[in-house]
C-alpha cells in the first residue's frame, strides 16, 4: 500500500501548481498564491527540503519546467507576465511576454521546445525558450482555463466549455474545435501520455475522457463519469474536480476534487483503481513524478465556494508513494 507523507514547506497561501522535474524525480516545482515559485526536494530528509524560493510580484497561477534538464522553468500569474526562470542560479532570467490579463496556465512542449501560456485575456502565447522570445500569439474566443500539451498537440480548455485542439506545427487554425462534453465549466485538462487523447474535468464532479482522432470509432470511445461526490445528510454534494494527473508510464490518472479526495482511475477499463483517504482541504494540484513512483498532492483552500480566510491557514503539500502495482491498470496485471 502506498505511503503518504507531508512535505514541510513555508508556503503561506494557496498552491496553484505542482510539477515534478523531468530530470530529478524528487524535485518538485511549486507555484503558489504567496507570490513565490519554489523548488522542493520532496524526498530530502524525512519531510523534504526547499531547494529554491524565487519571489515574484504577484500570485502565481501556474508553472512548468522548461526543457529536459530540469534547470529552467516558466511561470505566470496575476501580474500578466510570462516569466522564465533559471533554476540553477535561482533567479528570474527574463519575462517572455505579457498578457493583458492574468496568465492562468502555462505548459511546455518537449517535442517542439515551446513554452505555451494561456491567459484570461483570451490569448495563448508561444515562446521559444532558446531565444527567450515570444514566437506567436493567438486570440481565442474565450478565457483560457487550462492548457495541456503532448507530442505535437495542444489542448486548450476555455470558458463557455469550449475546447480547442491545436497542432503546434500549424497554429494558424485549430486542429479541432470542440465543446466540452461536460455541462459545467471546464476546470482542468490533461493529455494522455500516449498522445491519444485527453481528460478534462468540470466543476461539477465529472471527468470526461476524449480522443483526438476524429474518426467515429474513436469518438465513440469517449466517455464521462461522475466522481468526487460526498453524501451529506440526504444530499450528494458535488465537488469540483480541480486536478488531474496522468501516470507517465501506465496512462492511468488521478483526479483531485474539492472534497479533498484523490482517486486513481483506469481510463481504459473504466474503473476506479483506488480512492485515498480524504486530505484536509480541497485538492488544488497534483503531479506524478516522471518515473511514476510518487504523486505530489497540494491540498489547500480552493475557493470553490467563494470563501476563504486570509491568509489561508492550511496550505499543505503531500507526497504519496506509489506501490509497485498501485497505479497499474488492471489490464496490465
Amino acid at each position, binding site marked *: 500500500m502506498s505511503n503518504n507523507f507531508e512535505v514541510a514547506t513555508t508556503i503561506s497561501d494557496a498552491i496553484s501548481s505542482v510539477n515534478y522535474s523531468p530530470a530529478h524525480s524528487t524535485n518538485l516545482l511549486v507555484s503558489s498564491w504567496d507570490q513565490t515559485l519554489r523548488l522542493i526536494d520532496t524526498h530530502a530528509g524525512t519531510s523534504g527540503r526547499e531547494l529554491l524560493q524565487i519571489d515574484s510580484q504577484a500570485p502565481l497561477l501556474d508553472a512548468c519546467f522548461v526543457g529536459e534538464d530540469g534547470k529552467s522553468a516558466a511561470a505566470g500569474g*496575476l501580474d500578466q507576465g510570462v516569466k522564465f526562470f533559471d533554476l540553477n542560479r535561482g533567479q528570474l532570467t527574463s519575462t517572455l511576454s505579457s498578457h493583458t490579463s492574468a496568465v492562468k496556465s502555462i505548459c511546455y512542449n518537449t517535442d517542439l521546445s515551446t513554452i505555451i501560456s494561456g491567459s484570461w485575456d483570451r490569448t495563448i502565447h508561444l515562446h521559444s525558450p532558446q531565444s527567450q522570445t515570444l514566437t506567436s500569439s493567438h486570440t481565442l474566443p474565450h478565457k483560457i482555463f487550462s492548457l495541456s500539451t503532448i507530442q505535437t498537440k495542444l489542448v486548450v480548455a476555455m470558458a463557455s466549455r469550449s475546447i480547442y485542439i491545436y497542432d503546434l506545427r500549424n497554429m494558424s487554425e485549430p486542429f479541432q474545435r470542440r465543446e466540452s462534453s461536460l455541462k459545467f465549466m471546464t476546470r482542468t485538462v490533461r493529455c494522455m501520455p500516449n498522445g491519444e487523447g485527453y481528460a478534462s474535468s468540470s466543476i461539477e464532479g465529472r471527468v*470526461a475522457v476524449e480522443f483526438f482522432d476524429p474518426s467515429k470509432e474513436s469518438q465513440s470511445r469517449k466517455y464521462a463519469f461522475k466522481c468526487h461526490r460526498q453524501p451529506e445528510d440526504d*444530499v450528494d454534494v458535488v465537488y469540483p474536480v480541480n486536478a488531474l494527473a496522468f501516470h507517465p508510464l501506465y496512462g492511468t490518472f488521478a483526479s483531485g476534487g474539492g472534497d479533498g479526495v484523490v482517486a486513481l482511475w483506469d481510463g481504459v477499463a473504466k474503473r*476506479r483503481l483506488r480512492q485515498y483517504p480524504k486530505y484536509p482541504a480541497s485538492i488544488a494540484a497534483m503531479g506524478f513524478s516522471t518515473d511514476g513512483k510518487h504523486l505530489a498532492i497540494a491540498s489547500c483552500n480552493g*475557493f*470553490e465556494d467563494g470563501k476563504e480566510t486570509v491568509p489561508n491557514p492550511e496550505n499543505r503539500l503531500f507526497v504519496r508513494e506509489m506501490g509497485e502495482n498501485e497505479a497499474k491498470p488492471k489490464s496490465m496485471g
Partner: protein
Amino acid sequence: MAEPVQLSIIEAQKENIVALPGGRSARALAQSILASEDTETQNLEHAAAREAFENELKTADELDDPLDPYLRYVKWIQEVYTSGGGRLLERTLYRATHKFEDSPEFKNDARYLKLWMTWIQTYSDAPRESFAFLARKGIGAGLALYYEEFAAYLESQGRKAQAEEIYEMGIQRNARPVERLRRKYDEFVARLAANPPDANEPSSPAVPIVRAALGERKTDVEPRDPQAAVQGFGAEGQAPPQKKKNKMMIFSDAPGATSSALPEQSDRGGGWDSITTLADRKKENVDAPRPWAGEILKQEGGPAPKKEKLQIFRDPAALQNQSQPQPALTASGKPKRPERVFAALELVYHYGESQDECDFDELRARSRGLLNVDWNEMRREEEKRRQRQKQLDRDRAKAQQEDEIMMDMLGSRHAVVEKEPVEVPDENAKFVTKSTVVTLALTTSPKAKPKKLKKSMGMQFSTEPTMTMHTRAANDEIYSIFNQPFIAQDDFASSGKNGESSDEEDDEDDTEQTNTMFSQGGRSTAGQENEEEEQPDMLKGAFTDDEDTGFTAVDVDMLRQKGAAGDENMPTDELEHLQLGGEEGEPDEYMEEEPHTVYNQRGSRQLPFMTPIVEQTESLPPSTIRGRGRRKSTTTPCKPGRTGSEEPLIDFRASPIQEVSVHHDILPDNDVQMGGMDEKENMSLEKQTRSKPTENSLISFEDLEPKDKEKEIKKPSASNALQPKKQALTSKSGSTGSTIDDAQCNPMDPILREVILSKLSQPVTTFKGFYDNSSQPSKRTDGIRKYIRAITATGKDAPKVIPSQPVIGLENGEISYTIRKEIGKGAFAPVYLVENNMAGMYDAEDGEEEEDAAESATIGTSKRCELEAIKMEIPVSTWEFYITRLSHQRLGNHRATQSMVNVHEFHLFKDEAFLVLDYFAQGTLLDLVNATASPNNSLHTQSGTMEEILVMFFTVELLRAVEALHEKGLLHGDLKADNCLLRLQPVGANAGKDGSNDAEWSSAYDPHGGSGWDKKGLVLIDFGRGVDMRNFRKDVGFLADWKTDKQDCPEMREMRPWTYQIDYYGVAAVVHSMLFGKYIETTTVTGDNAPGRPKKYKIVSGMKRYWQGDIWSEMFDMLLNPGMFVEGEEGGAMPITKGMKRIRMKMEEWLVANCERGVGLKGWLRKVEDGVKRRK
C-alpha cells in the same frame, strides 16, 4: 310393527355409509339418515346422547360389567354416525380397549376382543404389532376369533406361513370355538394349497420370540422382546461407553419422562406393555419440548433471501437481441439522490462585462481585490512612493556635503555589493535606500549622468524599461512596451515581494560598471536610471494619459512638440520642485505641486490642450494603432536611441519618437484590451506605423486615419508576415469559423447545410445518440401511417379492427418505441407520441457512480421518460438534430437550456429519419390561446384573450430563451405559438405530478428562477429551420426563397436580407397572438415614410387601456424594428440582445411587483395547469 324401512332413503345415501363388519340395521340407518337432514336438532340430540354415555362411562368402574357401557357407546356411535364415527369412535375405542388391557377377567371376553378387532381394523396404524401386543397381553388367547382375525390379516399381507403358524397356535391352545377355528384353518390350508406361499415371504415367527437382549445386564431372566430393548436402550445408559463418538444419535426418553401408557416400564423391563399409535413410537423424530429461555429461534431461511422483487414479463421477441441484462423496471426504480453542487455556481457563472464564466482563481483574485488590479499601476504607485521618498531623501541629501557625496559615489562600489543582501528582505526599505541614492546622484552630480547612461546601455533591457509613469493608462502602455525581461523587477520592484534576484543582477551590473554610489544606497543605480528616464516617461505619461481615452497620431504629434518643449525645461523645473519639496518635507503636497503629477490625476488634472483631441479621436484606440509588430525585437527597442545620445537632454528630446516606436511593442497585449472589434483596424494601422516608423508616420497617420480604417479592413495587405495570420485568426475567433462565405444566401438551403455539416470539426455522426443507418431503408412510415389513420378515422371509414400499436424497433431492437398517437404535424414532419420501451435503463447507467467509471458523456443523455415524442422526417434531414443538440451544447447549463427541447436520439435511414425528443404533455401556446378563446373551455376568459400577467410571464420566458440562443449565435428560425410548448412542471420533490402539493412553489415571482419558478416556462421545439450564425460571415444577409406570408418578418416579405429579424418577428408574433388572440398584423408607421429612411413598423391592434402599454409597445417597437436599436449593442449590430434583456428586465420587474395581486401569477398558472390537464 314398524313400517318397512324406506330403502330409497338409504339408497340415496349409501356412499356415505360406512360398512360395519356385522352389518347395519336398516331402520336405525334410515332413522339416522333422516335425522341427519335436520342437522341442528340432530346435533343437539347427539350431544345429549354423548353426554349421557360419558356420564355413564365415568361410573363404569362401579358396574358389574364395566365393559358394557363402552360397548353400547361404540354401537351407538356406529349407528348414528353412518358415515363413520371419526375421532369420536377412535377415541372411544381406544379408551375401551386400553382400559381393560390388563384386566384378566376380560382377556377372553369375546366382546372385549371384538372391540380390539374393530380398533385394529379401523384405526390401528400397525395391525400386526397390535396383534402381537394382544398376544403378549394374552388377550383373546383362548378365543378362536383372535387367531382367525390375526391369521386372516397375515394372510392378506401375504405372510401365509405366519398365518399358518397362528392357526396352528390357536388350535394348539384350543381356542374356542375350536371347531370353527379348525374349519377356518382347513379352508386356509385349501387356499394355501391352491396358492402356495412365496419363497420370499418372511419366515420369522408371527409372534416375536422374546429373547434376552445382547448386553443386557439385568439379572432378570424374564425374556425380553426386542422392542423393549430398543426403547430402553439409551434411557438405561446402555450405550457403549467406550465409543467416543456416537455415530448416530441414539434416541432415549428423557429420564423420568415415562410415557403414561407405560407406567411400570422400568420395573418390568419389557416391551409390549402398551401399544400406542405409531406416531408415539416414532417419537425420536420429534423434537422434545424445551423451555424457550435461551433458545435461539432460527429464522426461516436466514436473512431475507435476495430475490428479484418482481419478475417482469417481457415479450421474448423484444428481448431477443437485447444485450442489456437487467430488467428495466428494477433499474428505473433506483431513486436518484438529490445532488448539490459545492462550487459557488452563482459566482462562477456571474457573467460580468465579459461573456465568459470565471474560474476559482479568478474569483479568488477578485475577492482579494487583485483581479482588476493593474499591476503596472501598483508598480507605478510604488514608484510614486519611491519618488516621494526620493525627493525626501534628496532634501536630506542636500543637507549633506556635496563633495562628500561625490566621494562616496566614487568609492563605494564594494559597499554596494555588500549591502545588497541586507536590503533584500525589507521591501519598502529597499526603495527608500535606493531612492536616496538616486536623488543624490541626480541632484548633486551632473557628472554622474553620462555614467549612468553608459551603464544603462550595458544593461540593455534591464535598464531600459525604467520609467516613472504617473498616469495609469500611460503606465499600462509603457510598461507593456517594455515587456522584456527584468523590467518588472527592476523598475517596479515595489509591489510586494518581487524578484530580488533581478535586483541583485542590477546591482551586479552596477558594480561592474563602476558606478559609484552612496555607500548607503548601493542599489541605487536602477533608481538612478529611473530618475533619468523619468523625464521622457513623464512626457510619455502625458500622452498615454490621453491614449487611454483615445488617442491619435495627432495627439502624439502635438504632444511631441509640446513635450519636446517641455523636456528642455523639465530637468531644471523638476529640480526646483524637488528642492522645494525638500523644504516642505511633505510628500503628499509634493504630489500636488509637481508638474508631472498633474498628468497623473486623470481627468481632473489633464492638461487642457489635450482634451479636445482626445474626444475627437475617441473611437480609435491608440494603443493598437501604435502597432503590434516588433515582438521579436522586444529586447532592444530603445537601444538605438539611448546609444546615440550621451547627453541626457538630447535623449529626452529624441525620446518621443523613440517612444512611438517603442509603443509598437506593447500593442499585441493592449489590443486585446481594446476589444476584438478594433482589431482589424488596429492591425491595419499598425502596418502604417511600421512602414513609417518615424515622426512622419505619425503625421501621416493623422491624415490617413479615417480612410485607412475602412480600407484596411477590406483588404489586409501582407506587408507583415504576422499580419495575415492574425487577420485570419481574428476573423475566426469567437466562432467556429465562417464556413459559408457568401454575403447573401438562403440558410435553409439543403446544399448549404450539407456543406456546413461536412465541415464540422466533430462530425455530427459522432454525436451521442446519432444512429447512422443511412445506407438502409427503414420503411416504417406506412405501418405507422396506417395505424394513425385507423385510430383517427371515424364513421364508416373506421376499420373494424384497430391494428395493434406499431413498435419501432431500432438498432437491432436495442431501442424500441411504441407509437401511441399522432400529436402534431410539423412543417415538414409528423410527430408521434411514443412510449419509450427502454425508459429507465438510462438512469441505471447514470446511477452507477464511482464503482464504474464508465458513464456516457453527459450531454445528450439526460434523463429519459416513458413518454417521448418521435418526429419523423421525410425527406431526411440531419439538420434539426444538429441544431437542437448544438443549442444544448452552446448553452451548457444556462437557465435557458431548459427552454430548448432536448433531443435524445436521431435515427437516420435512407428514406426517413426519427428524431426522439422530450414529450411535453401540456400542449403549445397556441393551444392555450385557443383554449382561452373558446367559450366552453375552463380557461376561457371574458375577453377571450389570455390574462396580461400570463402573457407577460410567457413573454419573459420566450425572450430569455431567444436571447440566450442569439447570444450563442443561433437562430431558431421558426418561432410561432405552435412551436412553444408549455413547460409547467411540478415543483419540489414531493409535489404530485399533477402539480398538487406545490407548497415549494412560491407565489412571489422570482425572475432568477428561484422558489420553483424555474420549473415553469416554455420549451422551444422544431429547430428544423435553425441557423448557426457562426457558420456565416458577420455581415451576412439571408434571403428566403419560400413564399412568405404575414407570419414572416417584413424583411422577408420585402425580399430584403435578414438575419436575427426572423426571430424577433417570431417573438413579436407569439406575443401578439397571446395578447390579442389573433395573428400579428403590422403596418408601417405613417408619416415616417420619407424615402431613404428605413421603414418603421408597428402592430395594427391597439392595446387595452389597462395593459402595460409602455412595456408592450416598447417591446413591439424593438422587435419589429430591430435595426433601429442596434446602438449600444456589441459591435453596433444585431443581435440586439442587450435591448431585449432590458425589456425583459422591465417585464420581470413588473411581474415581481404585480405577481401577487388578485388571483396572482401563480394562481393563473395553476389554472392553466389544471386546464390543460383537463383538456387532455
